[in-house]
């Protein structure tokens, strides 16, 4: 949705930095996977420099930050990704 927030940015406001950067990327990947679990989309970390989204049809998209991640994940999911959706919030509450 916002190319400026992603494509032109060499560093995103939410990028993990410093000593905890690698751990941060791993944790983010795991959190996003849980969020996307009900949407048929999954995420993997690509060498600590990018993320890769996959769907069940074999499609994959490389993204470099969380903002572009949501836009691409929504495209792959084929439906809106809204963190305020009560059904999603309830599913996350039960997520283990």
């Amino acid at each position, binding site marked *: *949705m916002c190319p400026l927030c992603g494509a*032109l940015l060499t560093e995103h406001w*939410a990028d993990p930095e410093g000593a905890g950067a690698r751990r941060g990327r*791993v*944790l*983010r990947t795991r*959190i996003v996977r849980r969020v996307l679990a009900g949407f048929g989309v999954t995420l993997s970390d690509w060498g600590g420099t990018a993320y890769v989204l996959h769907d069940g049809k074999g499609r994959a998209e490389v993204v470099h930050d969380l*903002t572009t991640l949501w836009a691409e994940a929504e495209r792959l999911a084929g439906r809106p*990704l809204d963190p305020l959706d009560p059904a999603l919030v309830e599913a996350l509450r039960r997520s283990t």
Partner: protein
Amino acid sequence: MTDRIPVALVTGFLGSGKTTLISALLAHPAMGETAVLVNELGEVAIDHHLVRQVDERTVVLGSGCICCTLRGDLRDELRDLLGRRARGELEPFRRVVVETTGLADPAPVLSTLLTEPVLRHNYAVEAVVATVDAVAGAATLDRHPESVKQAAVADTLVLTKADAAAPAAVAALEARLRAVNPLAPIRRVAFGAIAPDDLLRARDHDLPATASAPQARASPHAHDVHAFSVVLDEPLDWDAFAVWLTMLLHSRGLDVLRVKGLLDVGEPGPVVLDGVQHVVHRPRHLAAWPDDDRRSRIVFITRGLEREAVLASLQAFARLGRVATAAATDVVDR
């Protein structure tokens, strides 16, 4: 990054006193080395050496996302200032003031400053100042959503012409502005008479204290723009929060006019969060909390979002963060 040039953004509706304010500021000794970018050359301080005119020229991106529009004119002028200063063609300047047009949405200006690669490394947004006419302000807020947004994203609100308005009307307008933007101090200013430091040092002084953070409240006259705060008792996992906020801004960014807060991420000091729609300042880590209350508190200024829905969602993501962290015993940083 500490030597970035501060940029003050002056916004406000047509006729609300932006030019008067800027002209008076430029006459102040502390503002001597200031470059000014204005829309209408000739009205403001024409004898000032560093006044430049910019015609609002936006680069509309394919996404059509208005708040992330790149202001091409501003980018070019600010880059040009850097180049000319480096070549010695301009006298040194220590600060830039940008005046927007009265109908302008300030978000694209902030987006340009915070995301354009050259600008973000050379300039730092110092403060967003919005002028509001005490006489006409209430009617303007009723009729022009742009003016509500200008007030909502401001760091400081300048109430002009208060001496010409009835005291009761001024008080009512101030109450309304506080409902739209409880983060911004309101300064009554006549003929631009205010010290620059009172206006342009706002960014670090308006961090939300829990006691003053607003609860959900109705604001029926302000195009459904209202402010609310959330306070969290437990430390917040920063990674879970980053996942949550980027998703929220992806989904609801046009309705999140402002988000600002202090976050307890388990460090000695808080993380300062500050965003306008899709545009978020790089979070800053403070060495210490400003007061004894060390709970995370975040103020949202939104168009139509419900506090309870935002809080429930944030808490669900915070729980995910705790679960992921507890399971991450295998992850070590090298």
